[in-house]
């Protein structure tokens, strides 16, 4: 009992704790509610609504001023739940072309605060996004019947030609990563995802403006704050003029139909890309609007990879087109001169090594060699260069060789204004030292002299090789945007780069390429009235050979350099030469002759069967 009383006093401790807690809370509330103003200001800030005004995105023209990419209005159907009364649901669904189930689901989703955290029955909520102009016209006539529904206008991209999807790229909603990388974006904004839309995002997007609105406690907009004194007008995006010739692009894509491959044409003097086609391709318009997600999924699942821009992302053995670069190197390095001859007995035979060649007169000097595309000549030359006593070692000789290749734009990204460019591969001596454990010589690596083996280039690099030869030793980095409104192009696209080979050697190679068109492998490219220079390529690979062509025209004061690469197309003369010739004719004469048009149709209809495996 004594104990009981002793503990009775503990009730005061407990009572004290209860009172202490309550007094502590009251003190804290006094601080929060009366002493501190910060929280009231926060609550007030909810009364202001900063509404973003989106700028119009820059449009794109082709080199002849044709409008390629523009903006079109799209219409979002908005709903303000509080104002929806006596809705004739059936009529509404018919007007929008939706089902009753879809209507019920959307209405439930809009009200679901978990899916739509900003929901308020007093403000407009998005019911259906991106109605097309036609659907909108139908719906608008009946809109007066549907109280509570309204239309909000926005803009989406309009691609006016079903072409050049790889070049334009597409717009998509910003990802969390985009937002983290650039504070400009907020959830729901659109950003360029591929191609020019992505590379020139900063120029195209413009600057958002804002409108400061007042809203009442119910979230309803009551008017503009200070009559718009704090508003900021949006800055529209900059327009782009592309170097593309959309008609040439159309022809290129037509010729590549039913085949896998790519075509690149460059204006040698300026480095401007005249056309860049990659096949299979897609219509850029399918990646606009409500169907974007489905279509994108479908394209990315396709085994032939239509989303891949093979012109800059594909890396291939360049085959015989590479021999021009070899000839230039050997001439510059004094491994050969214009008169040097090498024998060819159906190929290169030495110390048990055999590299095959086709039947032609032998021995030959460099010009007819280029015309007949003799393998043996280049094997002998490379063997001679690597073994030459002018260099301290084979390693040093190969390093010299590699420096020439790099100066011609191989082995590294050229720096075109498109995302995702591949660099291709030019082996150096360290690579071979590692590969062969240091025991290698000119014979070991002989196949690089004919554009086989470890060497790979992108079709863009091959086209750039054509432009370099056309320019007799210099090139401006290829680029696809000719002009940005009110802005100077990057210096990369304005000043030339020079190779390490003298102009006279280029003249020799040009002669060889001219000879190839007149009497050699490229005879099909001999256009009447135009001095075409060209070089075929037939690149061996595991399947059927790839068909390639690299050329330019006219021989003097060239206007166009072309590279064609058709996967598994066989000899260079089968697809490469005729496609290249048609493009040159089209660009230089502005049209195709009747016979050429017939030839184009024929090529367009020819199908190469690739089977069902991943490409």
């Amino acid at each position, binding site marked *: 009992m004594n104990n009981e009383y002793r503990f009775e006093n*503990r009730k005061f401790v*407990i009572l004290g*704790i209860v009172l202490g*807690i309550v007094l502590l809370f009251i003190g804290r*509330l006094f601080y929060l*509610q009366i002493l501190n103003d910060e929280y009231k200001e926060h609550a007030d800030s909810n009364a202001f609504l900063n509404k973003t005004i989106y700028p119009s995105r820059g449009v794109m023209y082709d080199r002849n001023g044709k409008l390629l990419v523009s903006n079109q209005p799209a219409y979002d159907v908005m709903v303000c739940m509080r104002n929806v009364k006596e809705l004739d649901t059936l009529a509404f669904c018919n007007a929008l072309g939706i089902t009753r189930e879809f209507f019920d689901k959307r209405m439930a989703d809009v009200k679901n*605060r978990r899916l739509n955290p900003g929901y308020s*029955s007093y403000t407009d909520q998005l019911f259906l996004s991106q109605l097309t102009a036609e659907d909108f016209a139908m719906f608008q006539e009946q809109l007066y019947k549907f109280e509570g529904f309204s239309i909000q206008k926005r803009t989406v991209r309009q691609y006016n030609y079903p072409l050049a999807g790889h070049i334009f790229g597409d717009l998509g909603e910003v990802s969390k990563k985009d937002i983290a990388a650039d504070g400009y974006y907020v959830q729901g904004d659109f950003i360029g995802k591929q191609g020019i839309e992505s590379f020139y995002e900063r120029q195209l997007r413009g600057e958002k403006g804002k409108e400061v609105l007042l809203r009442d406690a119910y979230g309803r907009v009551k008017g503009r704050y200070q009559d718009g004194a704090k508003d900021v007008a949006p800055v529209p995006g900059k327009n782009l003029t592309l170097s593309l010739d959309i008609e040439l692009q159309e022809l290129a894509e037509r010729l590549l139909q039913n085949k896998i491959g790519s075509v690149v044409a460059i204006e040698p003097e300026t480095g401007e890309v005249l056309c860049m086609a990659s096949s299979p391709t897609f219509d850029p318009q399918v990646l606009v609007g409500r169907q974007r997600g489905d279509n994108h999924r479908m394209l990315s699942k396709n085994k032939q990879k239509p989303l891949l821009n093979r012109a800059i992302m594909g890396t291939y053995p360049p085959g015989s087109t590479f021999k021009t670069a070899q000839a230039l190197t050997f001439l510059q390095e004094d491994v050969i001169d214009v008169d040097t001859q090498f024998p060819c007995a159906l190929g290169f035979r030495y110390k048990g090594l055999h590299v095959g060649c086709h039947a032609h007169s032998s021995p030959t000097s460099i010009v007819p060699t280029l015309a007949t595309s003799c393998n043996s000549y280049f094997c002998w030359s490379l063997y001679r260069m690597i073994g030459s006593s002018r260099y301290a070692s084979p390693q040093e000789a190969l390093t010299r060789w590699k420096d020439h290749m790099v100066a011609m734009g191989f082995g590294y990204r050229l720096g075109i204004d498109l995302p995702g460019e591949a660099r291709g591969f030019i082996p150096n001596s360290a690579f071979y030292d590692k590969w062969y454990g240091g025991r290698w010589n000119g014979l070991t690596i002989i196949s690089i002299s004919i554009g086989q083996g470890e060497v790979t280039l992108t079709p863009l690099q091959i086209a750039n090789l054509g432009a370099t030869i056309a320019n007799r030793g210099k090139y401006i980095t290829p680029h696809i945007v000719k002009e940005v409104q009110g802005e100077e192009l990057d210096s990369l696209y304005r000043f030339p780069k020079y190779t390490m080979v003298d102009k006279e050697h280029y003249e020799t190679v040009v002669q060889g390429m001219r000879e190839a068109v007149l009497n050699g492998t490229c005879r099909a490219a001999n256009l009447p009235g135009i001095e075409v220079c060209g070089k075929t390529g037939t690149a061996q690979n595991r399947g059927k050979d790839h068909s390639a062509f690299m050329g330019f025209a006219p021989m003097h004061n060239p206007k166009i350099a072309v590279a064609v690469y058709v996967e598994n197309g066989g000899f260079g003369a089968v697809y490469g030469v005729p496609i290249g010739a048609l493009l040159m004719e089209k660009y230089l004469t502005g049209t195709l002759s009747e016979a050429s048009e017939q030839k184009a149709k024929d090529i367009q209809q020819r199908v190469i069967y690739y089977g069902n495996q991943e490409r």
Partner: protein
Amino acid sequence: MAIRNVNLWRSVDWFTIILYFILVACGWLSICGASYDFGETDFFSFDSNPGKQLVWIGCASLLGIVLLNIEKKYYELLAYPVYVAFVILLAVTIFVAPDIKGSHSWLVLGPIRIQPAEFSKFATALALARLLSSYGFSMAKRADVLKMLAVVLVPMLLIVLQNETGSALVYLSFFFVLYREGMTGSLLAIGVCAVIYFVIGVGQGENFFELMPVNVGQFVVFLLVPLFTALMVGVYSKRAKRAWGIALFNLTGTLAAYLFSRYVIPFDICIAQLVLCACTVLYLLYVYMLERYASYLLIALFALGSVGFYYSCNMLIGKLQPHQRIRIEVLLGLKDDPAGVGYNINQSKIAIGSGGLWGKGFLNGTQTKLNYVPEQHTDFIFCTIGEEQGFMGCAFILLLYATFIIRIILLAERQGSNKFTRVYGYSLAAILTFHLFINVGMVIGLAPVIGIPLPFFSYGGSSLWGFTILLAILLRLDAERETRF
């Protein structure tokens, strides 16, 4: 004991009943405020939250009347069976309950969902009352203490297994009851200290003083450690001079370190604080060697343990990967915070802070309507009061709670030698206090975010019924108190 006829109408405590109905009415009005959608919301429609809550209130009243009419002897008799039944129910719930936001605590019976954890509190209170009032029970006996702890900890553990750690923590409030019944006070003091260290040390961990590389939470904890130590010296050794000496030594030392860091060379003051703590501990050990008085040794261990506890909490929470940290926070019953650090609390403070002195008026709040505040009609219901009724309304409600709880304590204390009713009454008072402390503390940013309801205010039948049952039984027990003539 002779069978007496109790005149319920005359002997029941009407004061408590009136307080109960005032609280419930205020709660209902708050739910109206929180559910109001700026329109002609029909508060009496059964589709709306206030309408449903009215039904729960009606049921709760009926339930209360039934429980008031059951005699005390049945409560004493059925205390253990009811307790065992609830323990089994809690265990079964773990396995049969569907996964609702990660917790397995809701039993779904057709359209009705009930949370057994809300009801097992009264069963535990009854069982504890029965145990402590049983003949020959003594806190000095190890077996009795173990039984006592088991009664509290078994349901607590089962609720933790249901992933409802918040509700399980409520069972800690039973230790106040045990304290009242004679459990050693230092245990309670250490428990309170641990809670304070944890909340301040971990909760405030991210703030820094301007210019100085000091973690505020660590600073406060390291300031509290010597102060608590000094307090203990004062209480247990009865040598006030020593206690003051320790406190002043630490305070001046900290101040000196602060000034040095502020004006001379910025450095981490906490290092200086650690040195001061070490000196304090060495001093206590020295006194212990001198006087051989065990309390000094224990107090020294307390000081060391405090610092160790802080560091292990930080190791556990602070140094972990974010996802591991979230997992532990969820395990501790800390709510996850999807919109970023402190978003919920910030919104809740904005809502309350915007209320001002008199509030914005009934149904005129904005912050608690547009979904700025999460769970605005359940766990964060106090925000609505803060915004719409202002400081005056909040103070009124808090004082109402204080009156209510104090009244219950007084009811418990007026039982004379009837230990059963007293233990039960204290259990109710402690549970209510704990809920009030955690819920309101969370809303105003003083306690960690642990989702437990505010009694009689938060929307929901289980919680309201649970507390009504607890109260009705106490009122019946109290009505049968022995009146001394």
